[in-house]
């Protein structure tokens, strides 16, 4: 009996070490959950076209992606918010940002007696989330919605309880819309919300809004479209009330006249009459120096493919395409990867 156990153990150990042989090129990536559907589509299509390159992506969250990239456990990361200067300083190596797709955040609400699209001014959204505007028939909201009968009920505010890129985009917008918000709360994937209930994930927020009368919450555009959730219009920097759609989001990105070289830019509250004000890029974080030549070439090739062919898949999954100007700039930036 003992002899058989020893033999079995040795066989097992042998098999375990034998299994760790090199396979065709495997790249590891981790990060944001927001673009996970499009990324998995891209990696799958790319693998079919290049069977020897396999990219393994774990959507553990932007924070996790950044951390794993800094720790060196993944080949590249993904994040809904650009890395801050502090984080970049912490890294032992230079990191490049490559925008991949665009996303948007929309306000959804459940007001008794209202079935039309409501217009929200920037001040209204900031006031509601700061807790200074407490009733639905506040002048700031009624003056943007003439002819709509708004009840005098308390507004029940709903926000995200989990850290997320969606919150980052929304709070970034609110910081631009209101100095009060910028000084009191600031922007981040998790913030100290002055008022409101927290729902977990887009499903948590939309669930709470649907169930609670006279409530307002913010969710991703893609989620709203896929689940046919009604949402309102937001006033952009040009003063127009825009209902979010893919064209408006791409317009917001295209309107950024001085795109910085490192692509770390916020496009919320973008200029332009058709721009949707609560839009954002999501980025791939690639190390500038990759010592393994095979991996480097694979990543560079994937990025080229993503900018040319990959963008065609965006609309099918309700992500907005990158504007031409950004694609051109990024294609040039790929050569920075050494």
């Amino acid at each position, binding site marked *: 009996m003992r002899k058989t156990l020893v033999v079995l153990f040795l066989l097992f150990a042998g098999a375990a070490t034998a299994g760790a042989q090199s396979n065709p090129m495997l790249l590891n990536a981790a990060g944001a959950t927001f673009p996970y559907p499009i990324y998995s589509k891209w990696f799958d299509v790319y693998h079919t076209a290049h069977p020897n390159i396999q990219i393994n992506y774990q959507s553990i969250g932007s924070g996790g992606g950044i951390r794993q990239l800094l720790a060196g456990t993944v080949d590249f990361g993904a994040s809904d918010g650009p890395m801050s200067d502090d984080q970049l300083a912490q890294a032992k190596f230079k990191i490049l940002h490559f925008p991949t797709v665009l996303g948007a955040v929309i306000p959804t609400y459940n007001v008794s007696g209202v079935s039309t699209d409501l217009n929200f001014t920037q001040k209204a959204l900031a006031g509601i989330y700061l807790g200074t505007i407490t009733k639905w028939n506040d002048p700031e909201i009624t003056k943007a919605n003439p002819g709509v009968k708004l009840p005098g009920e308390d507004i029940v505010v709903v926000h995200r309880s989990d850290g997320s890129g969606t919150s980052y985009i929304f709070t970034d917008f609110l910081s631009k819309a209101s100095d009060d918000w910028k000084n009191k709360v600031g922007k981040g994937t998790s*913030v100290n919300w002055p008022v409101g209930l927290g729902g977990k994930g887009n499903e948590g927020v939309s669930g709470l809004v649907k169930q609670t009368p006279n409530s307002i919450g913010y969710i991703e555009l893609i989620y709203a479209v896929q689940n046919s959730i009604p949402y309102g219009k937001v006033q952009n920097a040009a003063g127009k009330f825009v209902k979010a759609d893919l064209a408006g989001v791409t317009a917001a990105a295209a309107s950024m006249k001085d795109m910085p070289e490192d692509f770390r830019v916020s496009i919320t509250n973008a200029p332009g009459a058709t721009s949707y004000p609560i839009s954002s890029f999501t980025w791939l974080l690639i190390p500038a120096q990759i010592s393994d030549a095979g991996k480097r070439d694979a990543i560079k090739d994937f990025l080229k493919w993503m900018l040319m062919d990959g963008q065609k898949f965006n609309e099918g999954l309700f992500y907005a395409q990158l504007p031409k100007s950004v694609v051109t700039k990024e294609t040039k930036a790929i050569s920075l990867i050494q």
Partner: protein
Amino acid sequence: MDRAAPRRFNGGGPRAFIHRLRHGDEVAHILTLTFAAGILLLTSMLVYELWVNSHLSRAKFGWMFFWTSTWDPVFDNFGAAPFIYGTLVTSIVSLVTAVPLGLAAAIFLSELAPRRMSDTISFLIDLLAAVPSVIYGLLGIFIVVPLMRTTVGPILIGTLGHVPVIGRFFKGPNYGVGFLTAGVVLAIMVVPFIISVSREVLLTVPREQREAALALGATRWEATWKVVVPWARTGILGSVFLALARALGETMAVTMVIGNDPKISASLFAPGYTIAAVIANEFTEATGDLYLSALIELGLVLFLMTFILNGLARLLIVATERGGGHPS
């Protein structure tokens, strides 16, 4: 077994050791000792990791961490007070709801129900204990929350809200989610533990005790309440603390129904937050080092709370043992 052999083989000399080794005694001893030590090692490693990884936050906030009530990831100001409050309140509400219910059910199942019915129902209740907590969370969202908002909430606010001392716990806006809802959902989750353990303990009470009480002229209920239940006191207390342990650490079900708002409010209808919920919600996206460290320190705080409460449980059990009743 060693009595049969004329030689003494416990202790003393290499020959004795080899004998014990070959006959399995020493192997069994070493193996079981390793596993027991392993558990202790695992726990110490856990505490060590929590301690080390929270050093940034401990260094910056010190003892203030326990009573600061802001949780601000943007301006790096963290405090555990709302979470400690939320964890304690939801656990207390769940126990206050679950213990009378569970104890009554256990008494019924052990004393009053026919044996077959009792066995079937206990089997079903044990199944309830195995249901994953996310399911309870969904149950909470789709059934308990609307019920609380439309029916139970207004009734309680209307009646208990006006009573002088406890009125402050039942005031204020009622969203459906909040401490009370979380407490009720937790109660539903821990009741099976209380029922099954208490029932087992009540069934072990010797028949002589019951018969003696009845012989002295007690009614059926008096015999149960005054003799049988006190005899099983320590076991029942044990089940209550088992339930408390589950309630303290429950994450998913609570975060779905508590409103996730880190504020301390007297009203049970207000939204709140618990330690387990905030760690589950914010850990993956926590980018700053101090932020991460603060979350880990929260984990350490929860560990400490559980440790203290379990210690109190032990003390309470020892105290009741001294007061009479079957030692368990």
